[in-house]
């Protein structure tokens, strides 16, 4: 029997079973009863269960999230609204956020991923912004796990179909394969939007007696209890929860987007909030709570697509493509006209009040009457016990076996799931619609032009889960630093980040320790790089039968390129140009892809991140880009220096001849070490002097790597590796893997 059927039988005081099925602990239930002074009705219990779920209340993470830096002169809106907002000059602002749809995507990859994209776009256009770019950060299980192929296929086409239909380009992302995600894939989606800085919409419903308006799709019995599902650990019994899958309707969302933006251009909206997880409940509670008012709803007016829906079902439904608005009085007719034009439902379903209570009526009967303070401020907050993780000792590169041939090794690495081209994915995404994608997927950051201007927004998503697993603190620092570096490598001033913190069960102290470490690492990096967090999302309980995912604090960053004529790409440009390395070489092979792919083991400490060095090196590189001193730039990350060079060569279809490397470190440590704060740049020979001087001034080590030319990668003492061969293996891995289904 499902929850709803069982619950419908319950009388006034819900049984202990029913309370437990709503995901509330006995202690939380007592707290609920205290807060309202009596036993709840079933509808009330449902409302509390979603509001107090981990997903909505952030009860395990809230105390720690406060440690993240959220301020800066560029920040217009930090965390707390539907999305963060940063100033990008000339009266424009960028609005962005990242969100997880992990559990739904594992259960039904196509619909789960699609509705995840739909949800994050709503968060952004709720703020009044037109979405201009989507990103996606995906973690799948091992390629040889029987479910992986099916999940990749479903997730990618779900993301593509939704974004493509919306006409918002999906411009980049990242993709990992790791057996630790076998039973808990991660699907994190990010949207960036553009808004007039003076016309930002928020969710506080200030004012009494104002109409509460429902717009969008009709309500069905979709995903009832989806919000509690997303916060519950998986087990075999979760099969039973399958009907909670929702189906996305991107066509309706496109209409909703256009209708909302059309109405937002008029002076009619007081507050607006999308109905995401926990639909009508959380949207109405949040708007009223933030506005310091009460709210009264008459559910008989809610447009439904099914017969006989109960108050419980309507309050908990997670039907997609819906919005709740509070309007100025007297504009209802004008507003309704807009939504009717777009063929969408529009209904006044209630009013704001001065009672401070949420009152829900259904056809005459009062189904819920709850003080808002009980739902919001009285929500539980936990300081869960945590144990810090002891990071492994650093790996001495001399202890790591060398390969027979560096170039053979390069070929094997680019032919692996970890470094193979992601073209198969991004070619299923319309990454060019809106005709402003000035840097397509495949580089360090995607760049979309601010429509009608010469400005560009650089966007990148990053985290290296294997680093975070070994050392959550250093790994999270690295995620922020790599994101900052990717934006810098495109020539952007990094502005701010959004995050998606994916972890296991926070009730386990070692998982909570990972979470705390990651927050501390992120906070340190954000502060040092003036790269504040303006929005984000926490996804906990990503574990199955006690096996947790590696800590995965995904970071999505946005940067500003003042003039896209001064943007850098990774593609090598010209025969005879020089290839230079900026940054110090330590040969860090701990947790490297070299050891993982070639030696099939991951050990040692991840590469340490020195934030001062990051900043100095990045600022130098950005200046060189702006001065036109360099013609291609790529940061060094996964796979190390030789991999970065190979990616530049493939992107530009230009070979390189490399100089003999210095011998203070083993050659494989130099070429495959993953030391941070490094960039490879291409420059015309006549710029070399100026670059050397600038590097000396910034105290950044510089080394001549080689020369651009030919159609192969050449290293002294080895047979050159033709680009054609390398391209074939690099491009072939993912299509080949997906074809053998």
């Amino acid at each position, binding site marked *: 029997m499902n929850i709803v059927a069982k619950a419908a039988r319950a009388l006034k005081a819900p049984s202990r079973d029913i309370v437990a099925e709503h995901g509330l602990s006995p202690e939380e239930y007592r707290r609920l009863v205290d807060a309202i002074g009596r036993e709840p009705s079933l509808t009330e219990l449902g409302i509390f269960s979603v509001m107090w779920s981990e997903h909505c209340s952030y009860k395990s993470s809230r105390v720690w999230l406060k440690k993240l830096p959220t301020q800066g002169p560029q920040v217009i809106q930090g965390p707390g609204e539907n999305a963060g907002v940063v100033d990008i000059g000339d009266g424009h602002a960028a609005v962005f956020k990242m969100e997880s749809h992990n559990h739904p995507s594992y259960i039904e990859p196509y619909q789960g991923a699609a509705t995840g994209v739909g949800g994050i776009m709503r968060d952004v256009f709720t703020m009044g912004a037109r979405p201009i770019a989507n990103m996606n950060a995906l973690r799948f299980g091992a390629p040889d796990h029987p479910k992986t192929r099916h999940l990749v296929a479903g997730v990618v*086409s779900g993301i*593509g*179909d939704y974004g*493509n*239909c*919306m*006409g918002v380009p999906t411009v980049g992302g990242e993709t990992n394969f790791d057996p630790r995600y076998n039973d808990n894939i991660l699907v994190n989606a990010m949207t960036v939007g553009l808004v007039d800085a003076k016309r930002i919409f928020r969710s506080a419903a200030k004012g009494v007696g104002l109409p509460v308006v429902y717009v969008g799709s009709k309500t069905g019995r979709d995903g009832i209890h989806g919000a509690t599902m997303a916060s519950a650990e998986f087990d075999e019994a979760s099969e039973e929860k399958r009907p909670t899958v929702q189906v996305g*309707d*991107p*066509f*309706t969302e*496109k*209409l909703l987007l256009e209708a909302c933006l059309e109405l937002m251009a008029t002076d009619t909206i007081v507050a607006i909030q999308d109905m995401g997880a926990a639909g009508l409940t959380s949207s109405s509670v949040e708007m009223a709570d933030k506005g310091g008012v009460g709210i009264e709803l008459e559910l008989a007016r809610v447009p439904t697509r099914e017969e006989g829906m109960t108050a419980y079902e309507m309050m908990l439904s997670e039907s997609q493509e819906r919005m709740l608005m509070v309007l100025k009085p007297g504009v209802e007719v004008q507003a309704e006209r807009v939504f009717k*034009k*777009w*063929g969408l439902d529009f209904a006044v379903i209630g009013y704001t009040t001065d009672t401070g209570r949420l009152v829900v009526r259904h056809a005459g009967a009062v189904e819920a009457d709850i003080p808002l303070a009980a739902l919001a401020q009285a929500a539980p907050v936990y300081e869960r016990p945590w144990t810090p993780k002891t990071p492994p000792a650093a790996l001495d590169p001399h202890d790591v076996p060398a390969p027979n041939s560096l170039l053979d090794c390069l070929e094997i690495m680019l032919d692996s799931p970890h470094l193979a081209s992601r073209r198969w994915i*991004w*070619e*299923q*995404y*319309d*990454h*060019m*619609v*809106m*005709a402003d*994608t*000035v840097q*397509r997927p495949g580089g360090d950051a995607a760049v979309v*032009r601010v429509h009608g201007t010469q400005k560009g927004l650089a966007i990148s998503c990053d985290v290296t889960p294997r680093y975070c697993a070994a050392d959550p603190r250093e790994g999270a620092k690295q995620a922020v630093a790599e994101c900052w570096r990717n934006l810098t490598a495109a020539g952007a001033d990094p502005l701010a980040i959004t995050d998606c913190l994916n972890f296991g069960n926070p009730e386990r102290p070692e998982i909570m320790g990972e979470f705390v470490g990651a927050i501390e690492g992120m906070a340190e990096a954000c502060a040092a790089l003036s790269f504040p967090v303006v929005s984000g999302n926490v996804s906990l309980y990503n574990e199955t039968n006690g096996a947790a995912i590696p800590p995965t604090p995904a970071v999505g960053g946005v940067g500003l390129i003042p003039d*896209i004529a001064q943007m850098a790409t990774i593609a090598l440009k010209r025969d005879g140009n020089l290839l230079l390395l900026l940054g110090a070489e330590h040969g860090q092979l701990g947790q490297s892809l070299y050891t993982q792919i070639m030696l099939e083991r991951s050990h040692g400490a991840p590469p340490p991140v020195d934030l001062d060095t990051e900043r100095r090196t990045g600022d130098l590189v950005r200046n060189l880009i702006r001065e036109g001193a360099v013609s291609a730039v790529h940061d060094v990350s996964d796979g190390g220096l030789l991999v970065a060079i190979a990616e530049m060569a493939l992107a530009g279809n230009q070979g390189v001849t490399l100089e003999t490397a210095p011998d203070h470190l083993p050659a494989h440590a130099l070429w495959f070490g993953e030391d941070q704060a490094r960039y490879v740049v291409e420059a015309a020979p006549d710029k070399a002097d100026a670059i050397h001087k600038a590097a000396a001034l910034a105290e950044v080590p510089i080394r001549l790597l080689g020369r651009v030319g030919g159609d192969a990668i050449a290293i002294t003492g080895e047979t050159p590796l033709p680009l054609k061969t390398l391209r074939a293996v690099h491009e072939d891995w993912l299509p080949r893997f997906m074809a053998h289904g």
Partner: protein
Amino acid sequence: MKTSVIVFPGSNCDRDAAVALEAATGHPPAMVWHGDAELPNSDLIVLPGGFSYGDYLRSGAMAAHSPVMREVVKRAKGGTPVLGICNGFQVLTEARLLPGVLMRNATLKFICKDVYLKVERSDSMFTHRYVLGEVVRFPVAHKDGSYFADEDTLDRLEGEGRVAFRYCEASGAVTEVGNPNGSSRNIAGIYNETGTVLGLMPHPERLADPALSGTDGAKMFASLVEALP
């Protein structure tokens, strides 16, 4: 030169088309909502890309029946030039202004990338700025772009010189390798009998601006500006 862009619910390249038209003609086009029975006087009507009605049922099928299309069909039959890009091409076939249909890509997947096209006619109002046989690079972005018509229709299209563009390799070779979606005879775009209606799957408006890594599409708009009043 007066241009109109028809906007269906779910169109999403309407703005891109408008930008390219304005750049070429110096005037913003009229944006015509599908529900309007009124269509302004136009020297050129553009049906833009996107997912009209979500591409539900069949791409372009529902849009082909919207009120404004009755007027578009009438104008097209009266000789007004019509350009259908991507979803616009699908709408034109569903409205029977062009023969054949656009079916699911042979790969069954959405495909977004630059492709090479061979210019099959350089004497049309849409293409006279190109050289006959020239190889150009346009982006495609579609899931239902596999052009299909029966053999007789294909023969007729070829015989009457109504194939506008064919997919090819960078070298210009018209091969299976150069065909991204399984289109019959590599057909990427076709004309109506009078050469005044052009439907094509690739997006000229997406490469009509030097900042977008190519300008091969701009020549189509330039051709139209020269050919039309």
